[in-house]
């Protein structure tokens, strides 16, 4: 069953001058994770905001858990959780205050709200900081609390809009751990990200969007295959470059390319480690020493590059 469906969403801003979404369609199978991957301004946040009932599209249809997002937004809000790019919690209040407040707003009675707040704080390793104002929290703790706030009534569908943007590597790892736990619990998750490895790590399916449209869809492996198989890469000393180019070209059966600065020679190969062994043997018999050698599977960066013709514009991480 498709738990989230978006069909031909169009959204313009500034009286039609800025087209944020240009006929975007996607769907998420129940109990799976879909990652919406794209650079800044591709339309990721707009998509999430429409699905979470915060924005109305100019045209198109969307439904969440079988409920029409445009016709019955109030019913959609009962089954979703949303956690955005910024930790949307009251900073002057404590973590506990926030969760109890949100629990009350989900119409839990006082005792149930308190009980749920305690559970969530425990689940997200925030019990010790429960009675401290949020403004004393680290970036990672804020995000975890924000995520906890979106899980108060165990939503059917969870939207996470760039959940790790701005976090340091450790915070990101922690967040990934938390999200993976949730996914094991069976939530249907739509996650946007501009980090390719994040999509790789967390998602069952990935849609790549650019300029408000889906430009590719598939599993991470399928998308990588689309770009091509493995590449053999070998780094050699300056004097050995021309001979190595010849060897790699001959064995791979493809034209070998040279990155002069790195003295790195590479070529697509279809036989993987066989080709690697053969290249090394030939180099050895010629007396060439490989400084570095390896087989590289294409990264999602490469996927993005080959799909859009431009690199994913990952913003500098701001704290």
């Amino acid at each position, binding site marked *: 069953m498709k738990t989230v469906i978006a069909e031909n969403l169009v959204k313009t801003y500034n009286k039609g001058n800025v087209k944020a979404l240009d006929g975007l369609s996607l769907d998420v199978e129940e109990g799976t994770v879909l990652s919406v991957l794209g650079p800044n301004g591709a339309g990721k946040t707009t998509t999430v905001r429409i699905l979470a009932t*915060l924005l109305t599209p100019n045209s198109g249809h969307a439904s969440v858990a079988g409920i029409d997002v445009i016709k019955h937004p109030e019913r959609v*809000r*009962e089954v979703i959780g*949303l956690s955005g790019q910024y930790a*949307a919690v009251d900073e002057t*209040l404590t973590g506990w205050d926030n969760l109890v*407040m949100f629990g*009350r707003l989900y119409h839990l009675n006082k005792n149930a709200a308190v009980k749920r707040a305690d559970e969530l704080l425990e689940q997200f390793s925030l019990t010790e900081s429960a009675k401290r104002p949020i403004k004393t929290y680290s970036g990672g703790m804020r995000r975890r609390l924000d995520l906890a706030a979106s899980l108060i009534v165990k939503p059917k569908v969870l939207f996470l809009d760039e959940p790790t943007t701005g976090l340091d590597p450790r915070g990101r790892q922690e967040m990934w751990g938390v999200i993976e736990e949730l996914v094991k619990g069976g939530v249907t998750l739509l996650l946007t990200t501009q980090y390719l490895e994040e999509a790789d790590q967390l998602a069952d399916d990935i849609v790549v969007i650019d300029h408000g449209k889906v430009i590719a869809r598939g599993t991470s492996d399928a998308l990588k295959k689309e770009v091509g198989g493995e590449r053999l890469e070998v780094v050699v000393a300056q004097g050995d470059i021309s001979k190595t180019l010849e060897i790699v070209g001959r064995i791979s059966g493809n034209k070998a390319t040279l990155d002069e600065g790195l003295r790195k020679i590479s070529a697509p190969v279809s036989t993987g480690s066989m080709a690697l062994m053969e290249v090394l043997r030939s180099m050895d018999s010629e007396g060439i020493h490989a400084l570095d050698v390896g087989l590289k599977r294409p990264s999602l960066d490469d996927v993005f590059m080959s799909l859009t013709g431009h690199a994913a514009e990952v913003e500098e991480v701001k704290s």
Partner: protein
Amino acid sequence: MNAVMDSLVITKRQLLQLARVPEVLIFSTIQPVMFVLLFRYVFGGSIETGQPGGYVQLLMPGIFVQTVAFTLAATASGLAEDMKKGLIDRFRSLPISRSALIVGRTLGDSLLNIVVLAVMGIAGYIVGWRPTSGVFSIILAFLFLLFFGYALSWVGIYIGLSARDARVVQNVSFLVTFPLTFLSNAFAPTTGMPRPLQYVAEWNPVSTMVAACRQLFGLENEFGATAGSFPSENPLTMSLIYMAIIMIIFVPMSVKKYKNASN
């Protein structure tokens, strides 16, 4: 029923904020008290009132009205802060009544006004303010003040939702409240102003509110250019009309603005 409960949760949130950061409450009471002292002792000596009990009798209603008028700025900047932090989006994604957040905030700001007015009343009493009317009239005057603050709070909601930056909200709020409170009879009699200005000042809702409170505290009102006109004869009614007009215009406008907050 849920809509009321939701609003009250938001109101409670504001009270919790005050409990967590008591400085906010302290400074929002110190400022009006400081105004009372400054005006009472700086201008009090040089303004001839002919009023028994002196300038402080005229001043207190003026300062009460000015203080509740500034609720507009408090509401606006509080809301702008929530907008900036993305809290508004979270609230809008919850299954709660759409107006709960803004209704809750206006109520919270009015509760704060109760505390502030009480402290000011005590400070006024200490420096010689003695209302001569009965208890009922005095309570009615404070209710008027609270409602006036509540009505202006809705203007604050609209400003808070409209501006893109919290600093702009500050500026716009002051641009509205300063002329409104000073171009009035709150601190000095309008009769000293140039005649065309007297019309503006005396029709100003702040002036009718001040006049209404003075009347309720047992004072005579003095009008210049508009003496004998409807607002000068019926400041209570006129104030009520103004509050109704403000609410009729700004409640629907604010609710609509809030619904489309991110479109």
